[in-house]
């Protein structure tokens, strides 16, 4: 049956070329998560690069804020079908972080991990060359805890479940291993332009 007069929240796509297939536009910023908001105190927070690196590297919050950072404006696409255009962030490019570590040539895959046990996997080649950053500001304000603050990963060219909230580090692996959602039916890669939502897509 069709519910008379029901259209849903979707807005017409007056933005040709910027909406991946199956997505609709939102103007708010929906809060989605897999668990309660973690509250790691900043004096206990650290971000590390581990696994197949010559030596693990880590930064305290103070050290992290001193790293060269960028203002970035990107479109984000959630697998639950909402897209938000022109989101503004400030953060540190993964490229910048990698300058402090020597990743083993075999370390071609990354598992991003965060507080609360969340993980997600991304090929290293898709995190370099300005494709990924660790953000600590959204709009012009510190990133709110409900949106992943103090810091989250942002990988805008993949579905937003790959942009791990409350991120605490990257582990380098020699094989692609499924993270939290990838191990339960979601696509290992997650390209919204190819609509790679579920495994088998």
């Amino acid at each position, binding site marked *: *049956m*069709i*519910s*008379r*007069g*029901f*259209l*849903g*929240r*979707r807005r017409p796509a007056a933005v040709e070329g910027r909406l991946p297939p199956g997505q609709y536009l939102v103007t*708010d910023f929906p809060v989605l998560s897999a668990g309660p908001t973690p509250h790691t105190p900043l004096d206990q927070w650290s971000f590390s690069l581990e696994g197949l690196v010559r030596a693990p590297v880590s930064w305290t919050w103070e050290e992290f804020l001193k790293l060269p950072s960028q203002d970035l404006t990107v479109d984000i696409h959630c697998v639950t079908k909402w897209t938000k255009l022109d989101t503004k962030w400030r953060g540190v490019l993964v490229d910048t972080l990698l300058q402090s570590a020597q990743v083993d040539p075999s370390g071609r895959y990354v598992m991003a991990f965060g507080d609360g046990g969340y993980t997600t996997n991304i090929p290293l080649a898709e995190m370099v060359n300005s494709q990924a950053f660790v953000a600590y500001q959204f709009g012009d304000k510190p990133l709110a805890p409900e949106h992943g603050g103090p810091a989250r990963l942002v990988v805008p060219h993949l579905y937003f479940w790959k942009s791990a909230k409350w991120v605490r580090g990257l582990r380098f692996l020699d094989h692609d291993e499924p993270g939290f959602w990838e191990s339960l039916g979601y696509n290992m890669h997650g390209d919204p332009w190819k609509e790679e939502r579920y495994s088998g897509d």
Partner: protein
Amino acid sequence: MPAALEWQIGKVTRVITETPQTKTLTLALPKWVAHQPGQHYDVRLTAPDGYRTERSYSVASEPERVGEIDLTVERIVDGEVSPYLDDVLMAGDQLEVRGPIGGYFVWDVSLGGPLLLIGGGSGVVPLMAMLRHRAAEHSHIPARLLYSSRTADDVIYRAELERLAAADAALKVALTFTRGAPPGWTGHQRRIDTAMLREVMQPLGNDVHSYVCGPTLLVEAVSTALVAMGLPAERVRTERFGPTGT
């Protein structure tokens, strides 16, 4: 093996405005079965292009009313479904539903009492089903409802609650307002806290069956307080509605 939960198409026979933010829809159901007070139905809306979304709504009516159910819906600002149910849906329309659902947050007279019901905002809806059922069964199980609303205009079922309490010495209804009380109000005027709970519960003792429903933050605070006051955790049943309301 019981039949899987099936969708059915109900017909809206009546729409009543309860408060500025809430309406009650009466649905005639072709495959009505008696629900337990506290259970809910899932509602599914389908757009012309096939887009679908679902929400759950507690049944407000008592199972003694055969063949139909009442769903009381609170309008959520920027919601996707509740504005449709509030603005567009009217008597004569169809609504796809399935249910009744849920076995945890239920009470009926066979479970006995005393009964302690605590609700915030639209959390009063499943509790109302329990009280209406209790009245339909002419039960005098001691019962207390503590109901938190923003203002007097937001109290759903106010007249009926007053009538039920006036007709039954074993039922007491206490209201509290969190954003402003009417002139001359001598009752509670704050968020539910341990002192208020203690006052409401005191005549019932600790052997109560308690049900707490409403916004998540209210339910968390109240259920924590009840357990801290000595209620066994198994006797404190909760249903969280998410971020709406009081």
